[in-house]
Structure formats: structure tokens, C-alpha cells
């Protein structure tokens, strides 16, 4: 029982991010409205970001910003306790990923605007019907 709870506490984060990701994926595939799909896309991306951040987390760790003791200008590498600081690499990667997702979001919105201009609707099936009718 103890073990099970430990396992759950240790892993729930990953499970929930999977659930989140699947919500996003479902929205991308199943939703009919293009903007809704876009939202699903964003959720999907953030879920992955969440996963990365979870990788980097260390229990009891502090922010990946080195605390320089008062009165010092610098700190020698030997005196830094590695396990104290959270792994910074996933953060860096995810900054990039967020930026990418924002950029994609912007472009997608622009394209959605163009679509609306052409078809006067954002529903996928209506657009398809219009295309087929032509």
C-alpha cells in the first residue's frame, strides 16, 4: 500500500500530462470547428511542455538561478551543490517550444482568417461541403 501510494505520487504527474495530451489530440482530430482544433493543438503542445518540465523537476531543488552569497561576485564551481538546483535544460528547450507554439498559433490564426474570408464559416464540414459542391 505504501509502495502503491509512492508509485502514484511519483507518477501521477506523467499520467495527467498524458490525459491532457490526449484531450488535445482528440480535439485536433475530432472537433469540427477550426478554431477549436487550434485550441486542441495548443493544449497538445503545452502538454508536451509540461512533460519536459516534469522531467527537469527535482524534489527539494530550487530555481535554476545560482544564489551568489552576499558580498561575493562569483561562486566557485566546487561550492555548487548540483542536486540543489533544478535541471535547467528542459526549461531552455521548452522556452523554445513555447515560442514555436505561439508562432504556429499566430500563423494558423492568420490562415483561419483567410479561410473565413473565403467561405464565411469556420466549420470544417461546411467548408468541405462547399468544396465538394463546387
Amino acid at each position, binding site marked *: 500500500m505504501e509502495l502503491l501510494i509512492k508509485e502514484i505520487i511519483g507518477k501521477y504527474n506523467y499520467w495527467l500530462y498524458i490525459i491532457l495530451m490526449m484531450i488535445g489530440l482528440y480535439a485536433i482530430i475530432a472537433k469540427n*470547428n477550426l478554431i*477549436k482544433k487550434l*485550441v486542441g493543438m495548443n493544449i497538445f503542445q503545452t502538454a508536451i511542455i509540461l512533460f519536459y518540465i516534469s522531467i527537469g523537476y*527535482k524534489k527539494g531543488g530550487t530555481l535554476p538561478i545560482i544564489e551568489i552569497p552576499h558580498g561575493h561576485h562569483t561562486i566557485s564551481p566546487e561550492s555548487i551543490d548540483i542536486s540543489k538546483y*533544478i535541471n535547467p535544460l528542459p526549461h531552455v528547450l521548452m522556452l523554445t517550444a513555447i515560442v514555436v507554439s505561439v508562432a504556429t498559433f499566430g500563423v494558423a490564426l492568420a490562415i483561419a482568417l483567410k479561410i*473565413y474570408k473565403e467561405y464565411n464559416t469556420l466549420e470544417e464540414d461546411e467548408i468541405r461541403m462547399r468544396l465538394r459542391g463546387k
Partner: protein
Amino acid sequence: MYWILDLMILTLVIVCAIGAITIKDLLGTAILFGAYSFMMCLLWAIMGAVDVAFTEASVGAGVSTVFFVAAIFRTTRRTRD
């Protein structure tokens, strides 16, 4: 102890996500999506990723939602799902 915070925010995030994709009004989606961004930001702050949280705060709260609303303003609020 600490994980309870994390868990609760995670739950909120999931609720927000489900809400955002089920509401039958795109403006509502946009607004809830903003809330989703807040939650994500909090989650990352909890996990110590301050830079990521900062980015999400500025992007999610400041820009993304505005783009979203602007796009809806220029298109339509109507949605069937």
C-alpha cells in the same frame, strides 16, 4: 505536501482544457483558454521553471488571448461543437 498543490493545479488545468474545447462559443473558448494559460503558468512556477512560467505568463495572458480574441472578432463566434 508539496505535490498536493501540483496535483490540484494539474486537475484545474485539465478541467480548463476540457472546458475550452467543449464550450459552444468561441469567445468562451478564448477566455477559458486564457485561464488554461494561467494554470499552466502556475504549474510551471510550482515546478521551479520560472523562465518558462514567465514566458507563459507573458504569452498566454498578454498576447495569445488577444490574438485569439482578435481573430474571433474578425471571424465568428459561432461553433457547433
